[in-house]
């Protein structure tokens, strides 16, 4: 029997072997490291990544204009307002989500380095993406998921993702609730010698950059302008980081990067009793807030997903609003897609109403839908867990207790979080990790880069 603490203590050693990536090379003392240096040393250029992804049918997904939903948003917007809403249909990727982009480079790299297989710790679409890419490249895959509460009751959305992994020929290791998932994942890496297809390596993030680039290229072609805003469903930070880096690489420097998460405030992610009281297993604040305010909680020595560097704003929508937006996409645009991918759609519907008519807002992803990964599946399950379902004002819902489906589209609202508060929270977390001693000048500089807080704020928080 293993002990969580003992395994986590060997994290650096295990992950170094399972990645063949020398993180130590980028360390600059204490909290600081050379982020751009690390990101630019994957050995793959953007052109390489596009070629690798094309080999396995990843990317080049359709950009669809949501004409009906735009028309509806304009109905509630002040005169002259109501941006054109576009949607990048990432469900068209081989495994049904943008995660195929992320998996494509990791799996290619693992094959190139001669690994026999890949392992990923994920309860999300990434599992199916790794399994699918591994199948295409002839590698074995093991996916470690958090699925059940201690009574053995599985979250429908994760059960579906497990089924998909199995369909692609992966071994699926299914665990009960808890952060021990990462320790057990490390053990699997150690015992198999497989490649760590972590969500948070430079390869994983570089794979998403193509999504940002494609959005800019296609919007330029279709609307003869750069996108004014891109709304990104925000969880661990990879989606925001990779997409934003791609948008910057494509030169759309004035495009606003907006993160959106489902509000699961009050629910503890490691709690056995809270686990099945949520209807979203990704794209929610249970991941996005902790990862935004301290990215280095991941299964790699340095997380390549660092969303504070890129977010211009970040806000939340409720579970009921996302289910409503999912229904809206199916019924008005003829696109039946999974709910988690539509977090940014709900946000964009509200945000478009604040933007000028001539502007363009892009919903950056969709995901496949199926049994379990569907509003009716989730609402049926929520009701069985004692969650009260009703129609009305979604802002009155309480995560884990109630879901309120908007009684009118006007009630969909994007609730912005304070970026200043998030930056302060990041800085406090950084200082807690620093422990005793003064910050070096490079550490101060790094904290400014990593949080986009002014130096005066970094100095004030650190008392230096």
């Amino acid at each position, binding site marked *: 029997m293993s002990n*969580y603490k003992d395994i986590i203590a060997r994290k650096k050693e295990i992950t170094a072997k399972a990645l063949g990536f020398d993180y130590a090379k980028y360390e600059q003392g204490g909290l600081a490291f050379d982020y751009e240096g690390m990101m630019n040393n994957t050995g793959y250029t953007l052109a390489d990544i596009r070629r690798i992804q094309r080999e396995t049918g990843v990317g080049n997904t359709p950009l669809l204009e949501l004409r009906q939903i735009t028309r509806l948003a304009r109905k509630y917007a002040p005169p002259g307002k109501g941006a054109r809403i576009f949607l990048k249909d990432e469900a068209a990727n081989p495994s049904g989500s943008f995660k195929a982009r992320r998996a494509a480079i990791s799996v290619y790299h693992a094959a190139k380095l001669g690994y026999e297989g890949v392992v990923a710790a994920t309860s999300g679409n990434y599992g199916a993406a790794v399994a699918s890419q591994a199948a295409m490249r002839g590698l074995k895959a093991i996916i470690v998921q958090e699925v059940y509460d201690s009574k053995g009751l599985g979250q429908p959305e994760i059960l579906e993702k497990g089924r998909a992994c199995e369909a692609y020929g992966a*071994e699926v290791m*299914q665990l*009960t609730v808890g952060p021990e998932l990462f320790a057990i994942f490390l053990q699997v890496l150690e015992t198999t010698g497989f490649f760590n297809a972590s969500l948070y390596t430079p390869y994983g993030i570089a794979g998403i950059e193509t999504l940002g680039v494609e959005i800019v290229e296609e919007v330029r072609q279709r609307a003869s302008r750069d996108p004014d805003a891109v709304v990104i469903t925000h969880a661990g930070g990879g989606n925001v980081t990779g997409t934003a880096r791609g948008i910057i690489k494509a030169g759309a420097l004035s495009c606003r990067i907006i993160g959106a998460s489902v509000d699961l405030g009050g629910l503890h992610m490691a709690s056995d009793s809270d686990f099945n009281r949520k209807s979203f297993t990704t794209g929610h604040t249970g991941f996005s807030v902790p990862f935004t305010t301290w990215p280095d909680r991941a299964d790699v020595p340095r997380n390549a997903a660092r969303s504070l560097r890129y977010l211009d704003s970040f806000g939340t929508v409720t579970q009921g609003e996302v289910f409503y937006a999912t229904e809206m996409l199916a019924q008005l645009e003829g696109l039946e897609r999974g709910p988690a991918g539509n977090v940014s759609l709900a946000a964009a519907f509200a945000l478009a109403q604040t933007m000028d008519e001539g502007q363009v807002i892009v919903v950056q992803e969709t995901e496949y839908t199926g049994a379990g990964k569907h509003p009716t599946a989730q609402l049926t399950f929520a009701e069985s867990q004692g969650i009260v379902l009703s129609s009305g004002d979604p802002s009155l819902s309480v995560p884990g207790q109630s879901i309120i489906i908007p009684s009118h589209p006007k009630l969909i609202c994007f609730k912005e979080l304070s970026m200043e508060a998030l930056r302060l929270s990041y800085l406090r977390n950084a200082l807690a990790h620093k422990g005793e001693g003064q910050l070096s000048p490079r550490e101060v500089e790094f904290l400014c880069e990593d949080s986009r807080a002014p130096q005066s704020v970094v100095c004030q928080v650190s008392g230096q």
Partner: protein
Amino acid sequence: MLSHIGSWVEIAWVAMTPSARAEQLPQSSRAVSVVAKVRGFALASAALGEELSVKTFAGRILSGTLVDLSPGHTHSFGRPQPLLLAVGGALREELKS
């Protein structure tokens, strides 16, 4: 019922007991073990509740308690949801007016 050699089964085992778990867990998690489940091909004949080794899709040999013979996928689309059934019609009406 017995599993046959080579049949598709599910095994489970305790991956971490409460004392081996992470610190700072919420009470409801601290009280219980982390349980792991895996599906694979049975390497022996066993009855439910007995120890069994399986070979997984990745080729690993793992051992645990046999918990399911012929484990399937039974998650579904759930029941029709009246709150959602009303949305499409209402949105179309909104677009008309």
